[in-house]
């Protein structure tokens, strides 16, 4: 177990280092002079010289990289070319919005997905299963940004049920915040719910035909108790696995959802930065996403070893 965790931690650290190198080299792969790209509007020779010096562009590449990492560790992600605001303070306002949206979407998806998955497995071969399977297939196939678009058109603009765009911080106005974030949460959570449902269903079907459930039934446990206590316990592992595996999709989905609903989060910041060619912001966004992905997946693995005794014993996740 300890051995497994140490190996896992070492792999995560290695991946983190490699992604930092990739992001660092990415900006150097830009066509032309990186100083020119970082300069934005002010392209006087003095300004370019100052930028070269500030970013150490006049130094050899390994030293530049060391300096880059040193600045990152101090929380210095550079300054936005377009606004002149430090990227770190842009992140502190944007990231909480995205985190709130993602957490709510995961909660919703877990509730819907596990519920529908259990229902489909228990009602095997009945209309409830077909309905749940059909909905899951549609959930996998529908472009979610399009659903969001339709929701804004018909629920927000036409029916006036929800605000079409905008955001109020959670701490300022919790009710208003919820009102703004409900539609984006449903849109972002729907796809994840479909994936969780399909996995829960097959895990449940397998569990229901396994020996320990048969034993539980044989010793006279009521069906409800068999399902919740023996079979459903395994679906917690399914949810944790899916969230780990689908994290990349969730981050991508959050970017799009924020863009459609005009939520001032990480995603909107990313897209705006691409169109404004705001390289320091793009660099920070890409690196932060990779870091978040690596750290969260490491935590998911830790969580695994807590909830799945098999891993605790064998030290092997498979």
């Amino acid at each position: 177990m300890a051995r497994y965790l140490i190996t896992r931690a070492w792999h995560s650290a290695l991946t983190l280092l490699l992604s930092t190198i990739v992001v660092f080299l990415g900006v150097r792969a830009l066509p032309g002079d990186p100083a020119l790209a970082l300069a934005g509007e002010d392209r006087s020779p003095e300004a370019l010289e100052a930028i070269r010096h500030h970013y150490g562009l006049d130094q050899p590449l390994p030293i530049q990289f060391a300096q880059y990492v040193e600045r990152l560790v101090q929380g210095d992600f550079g300054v936005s070319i377009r606004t002149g605001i430090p990227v770190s303070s842009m992140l502190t306002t944007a990231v909480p919005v995205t985190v709130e949206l993602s957490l709510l979407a995961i909660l919703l998806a877990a509730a819907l997905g596990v519920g529908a998955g259990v229902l489909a497995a228990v009602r095997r071969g009945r209309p409830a299963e077909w309905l749940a399977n059909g909905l899951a297939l549609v959930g996998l196939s529908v472009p979610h940004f399009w659903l969001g678009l339709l929701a804004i058109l018909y629920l927000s603009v036409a029916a006036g049920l929800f605000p079409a765009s905008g955001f109020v911080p959670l701490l300022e106005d919790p009710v208003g915040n919820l009102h703004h974030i409900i539609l984006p949460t449903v849109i972002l959570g729907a796809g994840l719910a479909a994936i969780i449902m399909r996995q829960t269903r097959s895990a449940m079907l397998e569990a229901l035909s396994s020996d320990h459930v048969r034993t539980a039934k044989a010793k006279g446990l009521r069906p409800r108790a068999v399902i919740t206590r023996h079979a459903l316990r395994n679906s917690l592992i399914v949810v944790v696995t899916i969230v780990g595996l689908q994290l990349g999709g969730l981050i991508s989905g959050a970017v799009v959802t924020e863009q459609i609903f005009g939520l001032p989060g990480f995603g909107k910041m990313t897209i705006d930065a691409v169109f404004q060619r705001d390289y320091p912001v793009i660099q920070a966004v890409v690196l932060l996403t990779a870091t978040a992905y690596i750290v969260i997946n490491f935590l998911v693995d830790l969580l695994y070893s807590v909830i799945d005794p098999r891993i605790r014993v064998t030290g092997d996740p498979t």
Partner: protein
Amino acid sequence: MTVLTVPMAEAGPAGTSRRTRVLRRLRRNPLAVVSFVVLALAAVVALLSPWIAPHEVQQTDFAHTFSPPGTPGHLLGTDDLGRDVLSRIMLGARASLQVALLAVATSLIIGVPLGLAAGYFRAWDAVISRFTDLLLAFPFLIMAVGLAAIRGASLTNAAVAIGIAQIPGVIRVVRSDTLRLKSLDFVAAAVVDGASDPWVLARHILPNATSVILVQATVAIPTAILAEAVLSFLGLGIQPPSPSLGTMLATAQQFAARAPWAAVLPGVVIMGLALAFNVFGDALRDALDPKGDR
């Protein structure tokens, strides 16, 4: 001189080949048949769209902008520049399929050899696993953002970003199937017989891994179609005025108050394509499942 014969891999009951049985199971599944017909029709329309589209896709008509569906001469209406929506949907679907096939081809060309190597050679496994971890750390949208920032937004760059993001999935399934096949007797027999590693991989492992690769490709295509739509919608994929279902939806969003119907059709087409691939992929996986052979 060798007298050892390599047993046929995974041969089924005498008389019927595995392929025949899989095809028969597919033919008996109505969902598989319907989704296959939908996909075949979509492929034909996409292939022929430059010739069978009722109008020239770029042909603007400022006197007839935002004609609703059902307008004579424009079955599905016209857009903000008076261009024919049906023609643009046909060519947009063609572009979607193009990006999806390009993306999946990219992921297979890079992912299959890496998956084979990771499963077959113990020494390569760790290196390839770290490479997979690295790729996974960059979600497709972030990959597309990076590529668009460095190389500009285009159909090719969108396909490359989507394809790279799909490599880890390909490596994973090919690696685990290679591990499984490697432990089977017919591979051991070939090795004993003196076959070289490349020969074993190419002649014995790869042919038997085709079914998992096929299923993986079938489920990767709808993901790629949705990803392309997202990227084009955000302006990171196919660039206007080239027709794309994603950019059609972006335009529809701008003019939603004037022409709400324009936001419906391109989305329905994207969903239809993705749904047909997903349904067919499910059916194919069931049909290829060796459990069904018994």
